[in-house]
């Protein structure tokens, strides 16, 4: 994979129905780092992600990459739902991007990715035959198949049970290492465990708090004292 650029969000503003959702929003994600964005529901996290992905137009401000190459076509997007196509097999879902761009799919690479998420034996299965955790692993493989330097994730693990979630978080942190990643979550534990650092978006209009650093490198163990301490701090911050 080509070296990933840093992502710069400058003076971003979003108005919706005459209401200011956020204004003067600035954030830099260093090359190859995973930044978690925490915040209560309805604060504008998903809108921010959609703007970066080019799915929504901001009121003001811009999102650029450090190498000055436009972002279009360099971002992979992972949503809250796994968004697997129910009529396509697991491997076809992984290679969906190639099909949509009318390029030749690469089944060897798709199989390789499925092996890394532990689903090589289920390549021919339909999504309906898989559990929620398996489906989300297929979604990760599909995201990785895109080979995009920048990855945006919108609460991708929120629908999973606690144990599956922990496993998939470790897997995602491992596989996404090297990509410039922005992860939206409302789970402080998730943010503390798998991000390099995290930021909190709160208030109306919403503002970004100062970056919160968790010592050590992700993925961090759930019983790591510093993780638990930071998590408690975040819960206090979010409850205010």
């Amino acid at each position, binding site marked *: 994979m080509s070296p990933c650029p840093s992502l710069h969000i400058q003076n971003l503003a979003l108005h919706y129905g005459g209401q200011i959702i956020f204004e003067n929003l600035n954030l830099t994600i260093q090359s190859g780092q995973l930044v978690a964005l925490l915040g209560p529901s309805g604060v504008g996290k998903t809108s921010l992600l959609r703007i970066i*992905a080019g799915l929504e137009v901001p009121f003001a401000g811009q999102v650029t990459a450090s190498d000055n190459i436009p972002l279009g076509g360099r971002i992979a997007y992972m949503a809250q739902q796994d*968004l697997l196509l129910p*009529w396509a097999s697991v491997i076809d879902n992984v290679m969906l991007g190639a099909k*949509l761009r*009318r390029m030749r799919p690469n089944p060897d690479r798709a199989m390789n990715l499925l092996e890394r998420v532990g689903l090589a034996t289920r390549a021919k299965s339909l999504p309906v035959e898989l559990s929620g955790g398996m489906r989300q692993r297929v979604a990760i493989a599909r995201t990785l198949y895109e080979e995009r330097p920048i990855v945006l994730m919108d609460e991708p693990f929120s629908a999973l049970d606690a144990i599956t979630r922990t496993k998939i978080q470790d897997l995602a942190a491992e596989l996404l290492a090297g990509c410039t990643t922005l992860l939206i979550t409302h789970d402080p534990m998730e943010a503390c465990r798998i991000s390099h650092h995290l930021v909190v978006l709160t208030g109306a209009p919403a503002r970004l708090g100062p970056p919160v650093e968790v010592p050590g490198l992700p993925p961090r163990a759930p019983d790591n004292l510093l993780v638990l301490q930071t998590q408690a701090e975040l819960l206090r911050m979010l409850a205010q």
Partner: protein
Amino acid sequence: MRGFITFAVFLAGWWAVTQFCPVPPYMLPTPQSVAAALIAQRNFLFDNTLVTLAEILLGLFFGTLLGALAALTMAVLPPVQRWLMPVLVLSQAIPVFALAPLLVLWFGFGMTSKIIMTILVIFFPVTASLADGLRLTEPGWLDMAAAMNASRFSTLWHIRLPAALPSFASGLRVATALAPIGAIIGEWVGASSGLGYVMINANARIQTDVMFAALFVLCMMAVLLFTIFDRILRNLIYWAPDSRRGVS
């Protein structure tokens, strides 16, 4: 099995009415006389059934084709939707049956007028179901396709169209149930063959047993047609949630 029981109960009830009520046979023939007519006229009925079946199948084929084309055009070109949809809805306000004499006048006594009649009857459910299915694509899939740099055509072909198929299948089921009506009405108004023609002729000659025999064949054909189409559609759209398959 349940079908047979229902059928047997229905036959018994029918027989009881003819036996114990003072209904003359030209109003309601006995099940035995209808069965006798069915056997005596089997070749005649079979030939006419083939005609009606051909009309229904051709009507279904062209109606589905035209309806799918209309729905796809509306999905690709939104202005067409704004112009075409009111016309479609308006066309439903006109009783299609009122057009039957006109169709016979224009297209003659042959199969063409009946096929067009069938097309008219099924066009709206087919078009509306596919158009609805294409309109209601899961927004997440469209976002994902956009992030994957899919063209509009790719998105339509690989995502919107397959996603619309379960809804389209509902429309096709309705169409399969309605199609015989179109063909029969067409035959009533003017035809030289077909089950509708047999029925109207037998009626005029007070051969009520033959009329009932034709009606029986028509019902069997309609039920069989629907069952076969339903089975095929369910197998083709294997991913749709279906309580009867135990997959949800």
